[in-house]
């Protein structure tokens, strides 16, 4: 059957609960209540500190077929996922589902666990590296479920994804299960993606290498939701957890795009007191923040908040009084980690607060502008951030679809040519974020405005910005680099791309060869 943006998706899919086709960004209302996890009690004088992970597996009785969840704040320095799965393999467990919010190259051992049957399902918001490549070539029998950050929180809260055991990599913990990400050698800042797991999982285990006396302060995840605490030598490699500093791009083309993106925000009339903003940690995104900052300074504008993955650059803007608050679901560098521990206006928020579409209002709904990337965009403004030009999975929505849906103005920044390939295509290989939620595409050779936003287009034209039709930009790119041939994919569905409301926006098919 075809969904609302014309993507062919199957009526039913083995290993996937039920296929509800994507019907529009806000067309599918919730029809369920929140799930309640088991109620527990802990008697006085009962400790939670266990000696090792083996003991965790004994106490909880982790069994075949369970779903184990993990979060990705330790990024490519994470050690906890591999540690837990190695033990599961040693104990002969089979058929586990790993619900890990993002999968990085460091998680390559998952491939062997899948081949040996220890792991049979993956549920994630983003995948890159060897696991993504192996999945694209058909490693798993069941399709991977790819969600958005807000969608994962929604799925957990609504009981669509029932977590049997949540393993929380805790940079700092006390023996009674209070956790934070601000302290310890693996400090990662915000632990926001783990909040729904801690809140709704049947069992919650904190894994830490930095145990402090009770009570820990500040507390991100409280003792009231944590069953056990286990100390290990290292939860991960700090080198892979945070980068030293995230830098603004020096690439002149990237800067040109960033400068144009900032001018779009200005022309839309958004640079005024109370302005709110989200941008990623990539060089071009940061550069946009830089140009936006100059505009804010020139007009003495005090913004309301910056959201999402927080970088040192945003911290600097907070400290200079350019924003009143930072809402941090993931800290991208050491400055952000430091700031979250020190500054009361730098707030740690959970994935549900950040972006879940099914609660009483998430933070993305309050955004004025968001800057996002794309591997492809089509002439209907649908964006692909899941697969690369070779059809291999190289990313995922993360917060892309969430922020795009929430913000007043959603801007995609992209080079018109990526390598030798035009970024604009007739039809994206994998639809991740629907075109109806994208307002503007900014490239170095011109700006395209979604035809549904005629008023915005008029504003940009009035500001003298180089607005072109998206077909015109596509033709320009093809004149420079030629039209790429469509990729041939196999029939097997290797991933289901869920929109934030749980409907299926697209599927990813196995790459050939």
């Amino acid at each position: 059957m075809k969904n609302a943006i014309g993507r062919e998706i199957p009526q039913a899919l083995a290993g996937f609960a039920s296929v509800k086709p994507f019907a529009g960004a806000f067309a599918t209302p919730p029809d369920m209540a929140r799930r309640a996890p088991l109620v527990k009690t802990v008697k006085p004088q009962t400790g939670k500190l266990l000696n090792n992970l083996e003991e965790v597996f004994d106490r909880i009785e982790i069994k075949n077929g369970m779903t184990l969840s993990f979060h990705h704040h330790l990024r490519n320095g994470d050690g906890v996922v591999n540690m837990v799965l190695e033990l599961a393999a040693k104990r002969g467990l089979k058929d586990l589902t790993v619900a890990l919010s993002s999968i990085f190259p460091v998680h390559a051992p998952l491939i062997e666990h899948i081949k040996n049957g220890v792991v049979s399902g993956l549920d994630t918001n983003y995948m890159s590296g060897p696991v993504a490549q192996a999945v694209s070539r058909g490693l798993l029998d069941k399709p991977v479920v790819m969600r958005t950050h807000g969608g994962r929180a929604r799925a957990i809260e609504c009981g669509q994804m029932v977590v049997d055991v949540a393993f929380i990599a805790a940079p700092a913990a006390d023996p009674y299960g209070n956790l934070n990400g601000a302290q310890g050698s693996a400090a990662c800042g915000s632990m926001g993606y783990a909040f729904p797991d801690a809140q709704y999982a049947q069992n919650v285990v904190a894994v830490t290498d930095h145990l402090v006396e009770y009570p820990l302060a500040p507390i991100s995840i409280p003792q009231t939701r944590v069953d056990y605490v286990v100390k290990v030598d290292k939860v991960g490699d700090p080198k892979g957890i945070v980068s030293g500093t995230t830098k603004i791009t020096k690439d002149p083309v990237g800067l040109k795009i960033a400068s144009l993106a900032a001018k779009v925000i200005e022309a839309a009339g958004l640079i005024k007191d109370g302005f709110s903003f989200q941008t990623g940690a990539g060089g071009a995104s940061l550069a946009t923040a830089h140009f936006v900052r100059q505009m804010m300074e020139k007009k003495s504008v005090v913004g309301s908040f910056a959201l999402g993955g927080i970088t040192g650059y945003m911290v600097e803007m907070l400290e200079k009084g350019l924003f009143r608050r930072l809402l941090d679901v993931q800290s991208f560098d050491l400055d952000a980690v430091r700031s979250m521990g020190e500054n009361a206006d730098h707030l740690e928020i959970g994935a549900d607060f950040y972006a879940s579409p099914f609660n009483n209002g998430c933070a993305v709904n309050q955004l004025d502008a968001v800057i996002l990337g794309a591997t492809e965009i089509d002439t209907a403004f649908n964006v692909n951030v899941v697969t690369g030009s070779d059809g291999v999975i190289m990313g995922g929505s993360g917060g892309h679809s969430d922020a795009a849906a929430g913000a007043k103005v959603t801007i995609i920044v992209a080079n018109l040519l990526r390598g030798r390939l035009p970024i604009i295509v007739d039809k994206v290989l994998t639809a991740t974020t629907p075109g109806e939620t994208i307002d503007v595409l900014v490239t170095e050779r011109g700006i395209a405005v979604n035809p549904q936003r005629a008023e915005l287009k008029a504003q940009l034209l009035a500001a003298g910005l180089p607005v072109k039709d998206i077909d015109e930009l596509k033709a320009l790119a093809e004149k420079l680099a030629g039209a790429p041939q469509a990729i041939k994919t196999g029939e097997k569905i290797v991933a289901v791309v869920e929109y934030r409301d749980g409907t299926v926006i697209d599927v990813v098919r196995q790459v050939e060869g």
Partner: protein
Amino acid sequence: MLNDLRRSLLFIPGNSPSMLQNGGVFEADSVILDLEDAVAPGEKDAARFLIAHSLRTVDYGQSEKMVRINPLDTFAAADIAAIVPCAPDALLVPKVESAEDILKVVAMVEAAEQPGQKPVKLVALLETPRGIVEAYPIAKSHERVVALALGAEDYTAGLGATRTREGQEIFTARTLVINAAAAAGIQSIDTPFTDANDDEGLKADTELCRHLGFNGKLSINPRQIDVIHGVFNPSSDDVDWAEQVLQAIRQAEAEGSGVASLNGKMVDLPIVNRAKRTLELARLVGLTGRDES
């Protein structure tokens, strides 16, 4: 009307396909596809091929297409033979030291030009003490020479002077180049500001060069273009002044007077031309009535 707008002239390395392809994106008034300093001797032939191909195929938009060839005593002949038939708008000739140098280049250009081809203009890059001394004869040497440009790095090396952010050491050279160009009725282009990360320094240096009388500035980095344009674009005061000049002329004509004056000062032809050029530039860059400096 302003087909000689040269506020910014951006160097693009001739051995970088991606930069050659993107050269038109930055909206510099001229792009200078570089065969000289940016290209190692062993790569000259490859860069020549790339630039020739770029001239034929890449859309540089409104930017004038200029190619910096190598000096006369190195690869100039081969460069001219390969590049001129590909119809660049102009050549930037480095290390020009005399009118004879220009005449030698002109002879080679004429030999390489194809029938019906638009004549290739020349910009003389003065970057030696002797070149500065010979500025006026060079400016007057041939009608193809449309501008003198100052190259301060080699020049100060030749003097034994130290380059500074403020540029006191090149003050004399700057004024000599400006004067020679003005005397010959052609344009003068200032040396690049070499710290691409110092926007404040670039702005101050460009303001100085504009006040001294330069018509534009060389640029080594696309990030510098907006700052340079910001300085060379007319301010709202400039536009107001220009409108008042033209109003004074119209009033004088209406009154049948042959002499116009503004605020007690006579308005002569150079002033009228400057006012017209200011208004045309303001219109062209979409800044009429706005101060973008």
